[in-house]
């Protein structure tokens, strides 16, 4: 092991390599429920070449290697279950290019969402990216690799649908470009080439390490506002979403329900974000959306909520910090959720299962959903805050999480960024030929099985 440490210090400066207990501890866990496991080494490369050398070393020594961004998936996706080398990419955080005319950006893999947001606000105020509701320390690539969603997801799909190119270090050490950047100096598009991006998106770093990425940027409107439509009956939610998405007037649509504080009890909120370059544009869109939901207003089953300016401000914040506040409602710093991607019409069933599970285990919950595309699907989160200092509370939450994964698959959804046990449940249910294809791809790309082992792995 000492020889590997020495080899790593030859690749990067010694101050960016560690095998010290206190530093390994940090990389042994995330805020979720998965068991911690320490790596043997942590290394922080600065360049693609350094990443390449680290991967070559790991492949030669056949030791596990786990690429890490913000470590915020909550589902233990970068916990080094079998030890090895954790490659923390956060020193690679440079913006390399912004093309204002073709509206794309190229950046390094460790760039955080917070830094990118600030960078664009300062240097390209007319452009924006799809900011996820993760803490600003989440990396853009980390969010995209797990098929994250963001504030532009209702308009343009998963954040991973916005990728225009990549640079990847393959598990065998080759550096490979994906998309137009492989044949041109411009990283504007994955098409019209064969779509190789799919070999790396959703794989949780098991097929290679993304070192650079190209991403679509979008027009940033001058004004933003929000309306929140409230209903009590979950059966109405799909119709509300249908009607609002039909108008094509909203920036983002999310759902929310939670029993605490009492003001939110027994209602389901559907947040509808609006943008415009003028008051007139904003008001036109608002009116279209109000008109679209008139039938639910007339029946008295639904209505637009009255909001104080501070509540409105909270909801307009990007990323929202209210999620973080809710995550600590039980105190003790624990928060876990399963956010399956489901067909929109399955919202009522998912909601019913959420209530059943929380009742069964006597735990509280927060539901946050986000519409993906024009009602093409949605993320429906079963969120459970828990107290890390209360073993009994942890146990109940673990059981609830298990039941939630079962329920997600039962209703026809697919758990999003699933932890290892949930990955196994998915693979058990998966079409056998599809599973075999995944295994064959994995074998071809990573013959020694060094990349983030434990994930997407068939026993």
């Amino acid at each position, binding site marked *: 092991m000492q020889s590997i440490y020495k080899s790593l210090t030859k690749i990067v400066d010694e101050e960016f390599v560690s095998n010290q207990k206190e530093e390994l501890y940090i990389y042994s866990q995330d805020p979720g429920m998965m068991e911690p496991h320490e790596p043997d080494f942590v290394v922080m490369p600065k360049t693609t070449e350094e990443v390449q050398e680290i991967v070559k070393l790991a492949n030669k020594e056949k030791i596990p290697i786990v690429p890490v961004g913000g470590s915020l998936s909550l589902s233990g996706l970068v916990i080094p279950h079998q030890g090895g080398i954790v490659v923390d990419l956060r020193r690679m955080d440079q913006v390399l290019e912004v093309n204002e005319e073709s509206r794309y950006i190229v950046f390094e893999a460790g760039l955080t969402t917070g830094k990118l947001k600030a960078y664009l606000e300062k240097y390209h105020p007319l452009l924006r990216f799809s900011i996820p509701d993760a803490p600003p320390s989440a990396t853009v690539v980390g969010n995209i690799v797990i098929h994250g969603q963001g504030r532009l997801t209702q308009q343009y799909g998963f954040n991973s649908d916005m990728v225009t190119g990549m640079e990847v270090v393959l598990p065998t050490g080759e550096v490979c470009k994906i998309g137009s950047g492989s044949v041109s100096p411009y990283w504007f598009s994955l098409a019209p080439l064969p779509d190789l991006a799919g070999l790396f998106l959703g794989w949780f770093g098991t097929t290679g390490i993304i070192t650079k990425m190209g991403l679509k940027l979008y027009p940033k409107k001058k004004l933003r506002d929000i309306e929140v439509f*409230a209903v*009590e009956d979950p059966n109405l939610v799909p119709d509300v979403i249908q009607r609002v998405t039909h108008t094509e007037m909203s920036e983002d649509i999310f759902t929310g329900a939670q029993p605490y504080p*009492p003001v939110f*009890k*027994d209602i389901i909120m559907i947040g509808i974000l609006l943008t415009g370059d003028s008051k007139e544009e904003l008001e036109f869109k608002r009116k279209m959306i109000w008109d679209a939901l008139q039938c639910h207003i007339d029946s008295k089953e639904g*209505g*637009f909520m009255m909001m104080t300016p501070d509540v409105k401000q909270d909801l307009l914040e990007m990323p929202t910090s209210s999620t973080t506040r809710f995550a600590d409602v039980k105190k003790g710093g624990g928060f876990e959720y399963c956010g399956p991607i489901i067909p929109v019409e399955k919202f009522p069933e998912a909601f019913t299962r959420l209530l059943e599970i929380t009742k069964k285990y006597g735990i509280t919950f927060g539901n946050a959903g986000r519409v993906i595309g024009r009602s093409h699907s949605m993320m429906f989160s079963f969120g459970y805050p828990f107290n890390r200092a209360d073993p009994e509370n942890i146990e109940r939450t673990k059981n609830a999480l298990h039941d939630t994964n079962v329920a997600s698959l039962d209703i026809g959804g697919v758990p999003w960024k699933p932890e290892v046990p949930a990955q196994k449940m998915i693979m058990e249910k998966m079409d056998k030929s599809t599973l075999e294809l995944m295994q064959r791809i994995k074998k071809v790309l990573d013959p020694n099985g060094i990349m983030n082992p434990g994930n997407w792995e068939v026993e």
Partner: protein
Amino acid sequence: MYELKIDEKTCETCPTFDCLVRCQYIDIDKDTAKTEMKKMISGEDSFVLHDCVTCYACEEYCKRGNHPFYLITDLQEERGILPMPKPLKTQFVNISVPTRRDIIQFYGAEEPVISLCLFPQYTRLFSEEKLFEELSIIIGRYFFCHLMYLHSGNPSLIRERLPKIIDNIANHGFKEVIFFHDECYSTLTSYTTAYSIEVPFKPIHFNEYLYNKLKDQQTKIQPLNAKVAFQRNCSARLTPNVEDFVDDIFNLIGAERVERQYDRENALCCGGIIRGQQRYDLFVDVQTRNVDDMLNAGVEYCVFQCPACFDSLSEKVAEKGIKPIMMHDLCLLAIQGSDK
């Protein structure tokens, strides 16, 4: 249970039926008004029950003290007529459910005491501002007046919970309580009188307290010399007898409450509740007319008594270049100088 004191004969002999004829949101002539009032007093359905925006104004228009608005809201509930959608009604009910934060928020409070209702954003002001430093504060859901249920079609909740709220205050031995929110004051004076609910302490309107404080410190006042519009809030309709304090305060601080179409008894609703009732077009129309009226009157400030009105209308007012300001802040401006 507490019953509304309403006299059928008083209505029958009314020469004007101003309660409905003067309504700014329902177009209704005297004959129709007479017919509809008769129906409602008999407990029958009326289109008024469905079209009412719950602005409270008819309570002020009735000079015979016969509580047409309380009658309307009681009948709405009795007949299951919802002025606003079910989920918003649920939310209204949930707002008053006490949480851990509400547990006894008056330890150590001594008179003079002010109730801040559910507006914690003003706690610092009343704790730190010299003008108010003598005041003890009580705040939270154990002191919440519940009058808002007049808007949501479930006023029986007021009668159910109000006696307990009154007890919470009275049990502490307070003889007088200043109410920051006009709505609380109106509840403990007008509403309790109409339903014969006993209040064993003296409610003081915040404006009365404010006026007296300003009077004490009159030498420190630097007249604002500003034209202002005053946005009356709905519950002010229940207690027009204390309206004079508004003018008295304005006189003291050199604020000219300019003549305009939508002031005093002709005041328009801030629009918040109309929006809550999902009448978007009416909401836009009412706010636009109101703000245009302020603009035409050439005012510098729009002065609010009620924080909820402020939330509802301040943005629209500010967009037009008029400064939205709460009454107490305007007074502080006069005491401390506009640089503060």
